[in-house]
């Protein structure tokens, strides 16, 4: 029945691709979350009028976080090859795709973090200062918790973008659903594969959005 409807879809490669997509999204997502938070916090803190305000450092970080987002992905991969090799030992496959995915997504999440932090109530930041809270307290006990719904929603956006990015990781044989849709579906003109792979992507995206929305709502006690 399924075979009749989708004659070119091979279950094993579909499952493998799904697994690869989830694997890359999850791992790159986790790293993006952490690195993005750090970079975002640094961007926020060194921004004008903030605790560590420093024009030069801010400019540098800002530049740095923009470089990777605006380079074509394949060039990014090539640029990162020495680094990837050092870190992962390989330049092909899902693990080798991770550095490029992270380096592409983390600065992006960092910007969302910066925006979220900027919306934290000034009064609360001031109260924290007045109680003697330092940078550590400000970041971990105020900025992050007080902007947590925006952070969660931003992470949801980023993760869904990452699912899209993983398609590009196909250039280094990292597989994934996007690549499956492109190679087996588009390039070989098998509409059924494109359809099934895209549907699978949507299921993943839907789950991420659903969980993201639920978490965002739970975090919001305002």
């Amino acid at each position, binding site marked *: 029945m399924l075979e009749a409807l989708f004659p070119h879809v091979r279950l094993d490669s579909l499952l493998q691709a799904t697994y690869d997509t989830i694997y890359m999204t999850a791992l790159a997502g986790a790293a993006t979350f952490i690195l993005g938070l750090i970079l975002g916090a640094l961007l926020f803190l060194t921004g004008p009028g903030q605790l560590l305000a420093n024009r030069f450092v801010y400019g540098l970080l800002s530049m740095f976080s923009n470089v990777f987002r605006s380079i074509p992905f*394949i060039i990014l991969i*090539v640029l990162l090859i020495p680094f990837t090799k050092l870190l992962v030992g390989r*330049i*092909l496959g899902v693990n080798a795709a991770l550095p490029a995915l992270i380096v592409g997504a983390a600065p992006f999440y960092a910007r969302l973090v910066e925006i979220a932090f900027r919306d934290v109530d000034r009064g609360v930041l001031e109260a924290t200062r007045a109680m003697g809270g330092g940078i550590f307290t400000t970041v971990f006990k105020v900025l992050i918790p007080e902007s947590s719904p925006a952070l969660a929603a931003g992470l949801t956006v980023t993760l869904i973008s990452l699912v899209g990015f993983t398609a590009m990781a*196909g*250039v*280094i*044989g990292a597989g994934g659903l996007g*690549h499956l849709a492109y190679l087996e579906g588009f390039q*070989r003109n098998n509409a059924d594969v494109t359809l099934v792979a895209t549907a699978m992507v949507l299921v993943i995206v839907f789950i991420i959005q659903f969980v993201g929305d639920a978490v965002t709502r739970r975090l919001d006690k305002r």
Partner: protein
Amino acid sequence: QTKLTVGASYVPHAEILEQAKPILAEQGITLEIVPFQDYILPNTALASGEIDANYFQHTPYLNSVLADHKGDPTYDFVSAGAIHIEPIGIYSKRVKSLKDLPENGTVILRDAVAEEGRILSIFEREGVIKLREGLTPITARITDIVENPKNLKFQANVEAGLLPKVYENDEADAVVINANYALDAKLDPVKDPIAVESGENNPYANLIVVRQANAEKPEIKKLVEVLQSKPVHDFILEKYKGAVLPVND
């Protein structure tokens, strides 16, 4: 059980390798296919030793790569054997032959380095344009056209897979499409084109390329052997209906 990892372009190379997979398995070789979308990384991966062979390039391109990486000891690539040729076809909804192309007409080709000079050579052979003297076909570029009486505009900037769509939508006076993509788009790569690259003496046979040290390895030899065997040849001929031609050398 030996393992062999081969990087390949997706169509038709990977498809052809798929056919060799069960045969090699019988001979105790597990074939792993790593698909590539571009023409740089398969060589990078080969140089770094992450794949044992790649299968996407033809001799002129291989030579230019080797020239580019002269002095890099990891780029000691050699061909282990040629497998197939994909004659390129030129399609048009507007004219019947290259000679009929209108003044200021547009020609769209794929955005691949390896093919630009090769395609221009077809136009030169048909007498539509003239390229600068003393160029190898592989390095010839649009900018090397010295005579262009019809003032044709060549654009080498469209993804190969999209070219059939470009043709279908009648976006240009001529569209240059690799046979396999034409086939997938339900075109007849033998009858439909207004001009076809000849299969004979065609230097653009796609090779199995390996590092020098691996050239004599039995599993590589076996791979080439299988790819050049009758079952695979039959598959190619049947599947690609003449759009892809098997070679033996």
